[in-house]
């Protein structure tokens, strides 16, 4: 495990269990992992954060002492059920496409009066602290469990976000000449023993979405897709992308639209 920490070529988003099985059917180690995956998923500590998120959603908080119950996640103010399955999407009030965490941060700012700078200061989980947007995203995501992933592509800005995200995905730069596609643009590759699913194809792009937000066994922390993309860019040897930025919303639009049609199984558990 010590070892695992020092490795770091590029952006690896862990494959969902069935993807791992498909990618490494012949690998007995992967088969052994899969056998115990179901047990791990049956009782997933992510549920603790889901519960925490629900509590936070309903609680009156922030300088305006308001709950998030009037937050519009795309299906109307206060509608949480099924909202995550249709994100990222265009929001007229900000005239841009937002992913779940960007939207939650927006609601925390507008409804509750929190400042972006405060929320973006330490946006990722540590063993001792889980930022509120992470728990909230886990709660919101869980309310789309069992639903088909269907981010809309109706508004011109939603289509623009997809195409821009695609261009960002393929943009090679930085000290190592990497793009997202360097690791996730081909079938059947792996980094060390970790499978590298191909996110450019609908059949395997689901691995970018499934299991997120995810409880990460390493460190025992809850992580969102904002964290996942941030750590991908670190390993890509890029500068740091802004938390809940439009760049990440565009990238998530590209990944999620590619995964459309698959059934979302709720917050997951990751290595």
């Amino acid at each position: 495990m010590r070892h695992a920490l020092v490795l770091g070529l590029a952006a690896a988003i862990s494959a969902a269990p069935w993807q791992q099985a498909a990618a490494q059917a012949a690998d007995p180690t992967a088969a052994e992992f899969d056998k115990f995956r179901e047990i791990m998923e049956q009782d997933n500590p992510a549920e603790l954060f889901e519960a925490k998120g629900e509590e936070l959603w309903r609680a009156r908080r922030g300088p305006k002492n308001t709950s998030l119950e009037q937050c519009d996640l795309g299906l109307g103010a206060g509608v949480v059920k099924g909202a995550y399955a249709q994100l990222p999407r265009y929001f007229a009030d900000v005239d841009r496409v937002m992913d779940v965490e960007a939207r939650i941060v927006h609601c925390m700012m507008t409804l509750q009066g929190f400042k972006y700078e405060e929320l973006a200061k330490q946006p990722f989980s540590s063993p001792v602290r889980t930022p509120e947007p992470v728990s909230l995203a886990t709660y919101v995501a869980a309310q789309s469990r069992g639903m088909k992933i269907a981010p809309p592509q109706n508004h011109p800005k939603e289509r623009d976000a997809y195409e821009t995200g695609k261009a960002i995905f393929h943009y090679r730069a930085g000290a190592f000449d990497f793009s997202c596609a360097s690791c996730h643009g081909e079938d059947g590759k792996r980094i060390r023993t970790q499978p590298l699913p191909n996110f450019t194809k609908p059949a395997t792009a689901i691995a970018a979405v499934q299991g997120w937000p995810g409880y990460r066994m390493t460190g025992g922390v809850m992580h969102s897709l904002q964290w996942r993309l941030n750590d991908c860019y670190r390993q890509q040897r890029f500068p740091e992308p802004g938390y809940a930025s439009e760049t990440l919303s565009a990238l998530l639009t590209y990944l999620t639209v590619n995964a459309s049609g698959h059934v979302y199984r709720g917050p997951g558990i990751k290595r």
Partner: protein
Amino acid sequence: MRLAFVVTLACAALLLASCATPPRDYRPDALSLMQRDFHAKGIAGMDRLNEDSVQATCNKSQDNPPQEVADKLQKEQLAAVKWPADGKLLGDWKAGERIAQNGQGMAWNDKGGVGGSCYNCHQVGPRESSFGTVGPSLYQFAKKRGYSADIQRYAYGKIYNAKAYNLCSQMPRFGHVRALSEQQIKDLTALLMDPASPVNQ
């Protein structure tokens, strides 16, 4: 008059179906968004978002540039390789193995270059079963290719700048970007080329 109007409508319909216009290039949108949304952190400055000539050529051609463009740029890259002044290309394969195992370096939380990340993408020595498959297996590298001075030079050069041999290779340019020192590249070359290295057993 009426006819013209109908024709105009038909054109508009075609445009909406986006069959009459060439596909829009979203690269400029992507670039300006990234320039706005990213920030420097640690050793990873904003300059890392700028494409150099190799990156730009590969990005614009989906890693498939015209042959003459690739040839020209490869030549430039090869000419920029700094060969060891002492003429010796082989260092210590044991040190090389450690560098090959180490995946740290050049990220915003690193101080500078550290390791070669080789096992992340390649099978190298026979004792490490945790290796990636993004690049080809390097096991028995010299045993298969021979131990000649030319192959030594190729191995050193490829680690120093993979793009000097294959312009849009997925492999980083470890020497070119100073991610690895001359000594480290010598040690890695020894890992691949030394007859005593486990790689060639």
